[in-house]
């Protein structure tokens, strides 16, 4: 048994994953105390970050609050905006006679489904409104491009649950300055020339071109798709998921606003096209847009033309960037004394903004279970690997669900519905949900990345046919359900009057700040 202590952590790679992990570790392990674990981050001055992860989950609020970052400063520095969910346009089916169809996946419901599930009551009722508008005020707020809060609410508090859209490069910059100046992270800028292992196979050190040889007890691989430590050095293989999720490329374009008062959407807009889908994310100073597609179904030129068609006139002069997506995840995320976080751990198409969310989850678990002794490593590694294998698989299931329920008829969409491309766990669940509402017991793992509520927004939004009539007697709390439906309607009306536009609130934040209380 090796009783050696783990005192030094070296994070290899900056970017969102590196800096978020560095900040979380240093904060939670109290690295400012010299007897605590010390965190160093080395980044290459020459390798650019991928930096297209611009959507977060509401978990980011807790992350930022815990790190002690002011929300107003974060919003200002990262050109961030408030996000209340995702609007899925033309996912149900292709537009008919030029008319788009859409649904919303929101963050807030009038009551959490685990407390009282409105889904069966909505399914069994004479539906006047779509599911999202029946159970949440947030759809109306998204359509009106309103913010989820106003200046009278304290930082990180919302009238509705919310997340952010952000500029990933600026975010890494903010985290870097906070981690180095406030949390005791040491920063080195150098290129790695070799990785050295000891006899046991652990990583012992990295050699660099300008910072000498760096030794550490524990290494975090945040080297992006390259996966220098866990993949190239320790030889951990990669599970390709191309057979399940068919997209393999993205073409991106940043679109400036026409004028400084152009409304800013308060949700991500995801629009389905012939061989994939576009994201459209409104930041303060520009929109970030991109088309995720399958190169087997559409050429790169046609794909770029699809994105430009979506963006409309006046965007021909804007440059585009092509990104090859290596979709899949590592066979293990933690091996020996090395854990991979971020793109090095895996990548899945950004349909539900899982990238940053999984970085946060990895950082949290690593910090919480951090082994202070080498002998504890194998146990923690095993827990971590099982947990993240589950999270990646469930994330794939959830994203696949969006494709599987679509009635679009193009080859890409039909191929996505072929049973051999659908995880068995998802097929079984869908078969069950045809005659039963989703239950909290379908999501009873603590590591469940997407909650019951998320599945319901997608299932009902996609007009999944769920027949519950045979079991109507089971759902007899109709008075209570009616009460919640009415409360959602009332709240919608009230918040529509009360809340400022996303643009207005963001403009005000340039001058004013949220209070701490």
């Amino acid at each position, binding site marked *: 048994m090796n009783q050696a202590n783990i005192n030094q952590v070296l994070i290899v790679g900056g970017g969102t994953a590196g800096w978020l992990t560095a900040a979380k570790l240093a904060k939670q392990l109290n690295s400012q105390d010299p007897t605590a674990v010390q965190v160093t981050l080395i980044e290459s001055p020459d390798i650019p970050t991928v930096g297209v992860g611009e959507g977060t989950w509401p978990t980011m609020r807790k992350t930022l609050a815990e790190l002690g970052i002011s929300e107003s400063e974060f919003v200002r520095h990262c050109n961030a905006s408030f996000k209340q969910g995702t609007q899925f346009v033309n996912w149900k089916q292709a537009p008919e006679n030029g008319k788009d169809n859409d649904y919303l996946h929101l963050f807030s419901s009038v009551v959490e489904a685990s407390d009282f599930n409105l889904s069966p009551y909505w399914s069994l009722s004479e539906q006047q409104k779509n599911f999202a508008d029946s159970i949440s005020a947030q759809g109306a707020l998204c359509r009106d491009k309103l913010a989820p809060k*106003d*200046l*009278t609410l304290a930082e990180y508090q919302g009238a509705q649950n919310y997340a952010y859209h952000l500029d990933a490069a600026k975010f890494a910059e903010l985290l870097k300055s906070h981690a180095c100046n406030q949390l005791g992270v040491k920063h080195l800028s150098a290129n790695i020339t070799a990785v050295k292992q000891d006899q046991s196979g652990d990583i012992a050190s990295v050699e660099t071109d300008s910072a000498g040889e760096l030794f550490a007890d524990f290494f975090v691989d945040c080297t992006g798709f390259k996966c220098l430590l866990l993949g190239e050095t320790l030889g951990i293989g990669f599970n390709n998921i191309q057979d399940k999720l068919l997209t393999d490329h993205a073409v991106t374009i940043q679109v400036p606003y026409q004028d400084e008062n152009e409304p800013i959407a308060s949700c991500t807009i995801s629009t389905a096209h012939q061989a994939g889908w576009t994201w459209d994310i409104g930041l303060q100073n520009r929109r970030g847009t991109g088309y995720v597609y399958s190169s087997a179904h559409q050429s790169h030129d046609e794909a770029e033309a699809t994105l430009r068609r979506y963006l409309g006139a006046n965007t021909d002069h804007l440059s585009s960037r092509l990104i090859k997506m290596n979709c899949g995840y590592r066979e293990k995320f933690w091996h020996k004394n090395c854990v991979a976080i971020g793109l090095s751990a895996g990548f899945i198409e950004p349909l539900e903004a899982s990238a940053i969310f999984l970085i946060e989850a990895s950082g949290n678990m690593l910090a919480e279970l951090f082994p202070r002794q080498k002998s504890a490593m194998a146990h923690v590694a095993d827990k971590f690997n099982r947990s993240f294998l589950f999270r990646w698989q469930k994330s794939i299931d959830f994203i696949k669900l969006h494709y599987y329920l679509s009635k679009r008829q193009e080859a890409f969409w039909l191929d996505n519905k072929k049973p051999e491309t659908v995880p068995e766990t998802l097929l079984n669940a869908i078969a069950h949900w045809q005659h039963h509402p989703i239950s909290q017991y379908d999501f009873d793992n603590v590591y469940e990345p997407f909650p019951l509520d998320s599945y319901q927004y997608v299932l009902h939004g996609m007009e999944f046919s769920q027949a519950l009539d045979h079991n109507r007697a089971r759902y007899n709390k109709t008075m209570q359900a009616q009460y919640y439906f009415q409360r959602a309607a009332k709240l919608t009306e009230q918040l529509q009057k009360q809340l400022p536009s996303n643009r207005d609130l963001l403009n*005000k934040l340039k*001058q*004013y*700040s*949220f*209070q*701490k*209380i």
Partner: protein
Amino acid sequence: MAKVSPINAQAHANTKIKQDPGFAHSQGQHLIPIVVHEFAPASQDTPIVFIKDSETGRFMAMSLVGLKPGENVLVGEQWKGTYIPQVLRNYPLVVAKGKEEGQAILCLHQDSPLISETEGEALFDENGEQTQWCKKMAEQVISSVEQNQITQGYVQYLAEKQLIAPQTLNMNISGEQYSLNGLYVINEQALNDLADETLLEMKKLGYLMPTYAALLSQQRVHNLARIKTA
């Protein structure tokens, strides 16, 4: 927003300002802005609370004069409090910021019922000069602006030290339930838990007396209930 216009010798040559001992213009306001210099006397009558300005998110100090939105129990033929907040005494005069930095322009609430041509104190004399009364009022109004800035610094200090906390005011008066949201009050526990150096800093800044005045004033809600039911 009420219309205000700068006063000048031509337009207001004959303008007079009446006095209203009941301060009826504040009817319909359950919160009256006050400055920190008024905390001691104001705390004798009403609770001193803090609210956030929805335009800026900044905290403002207020004298609570009603138990529900739109209610002012102190308005009457005579003001029913022992202390009359300065902002009421200044009315209908007000200072607006000029185009240049630091410039202050004396203005008048145009729609005020206190404006008259026959009754009250004249703004200008027959030579077109400001009357003594007008000069005195101008001084008072301008000093309010300075005191406002001091108050803003003080209130922001309270917020940063988290010495105020949200409080919903719930009262049952003769069977009727009253509830007011969006109010913040001095948090006694936080005040007691202050680090010595912060306490010393507050002492040096002159923040202790108004803070304790605001804390004690929370009891004055019963005073409002008594006046309301009298």
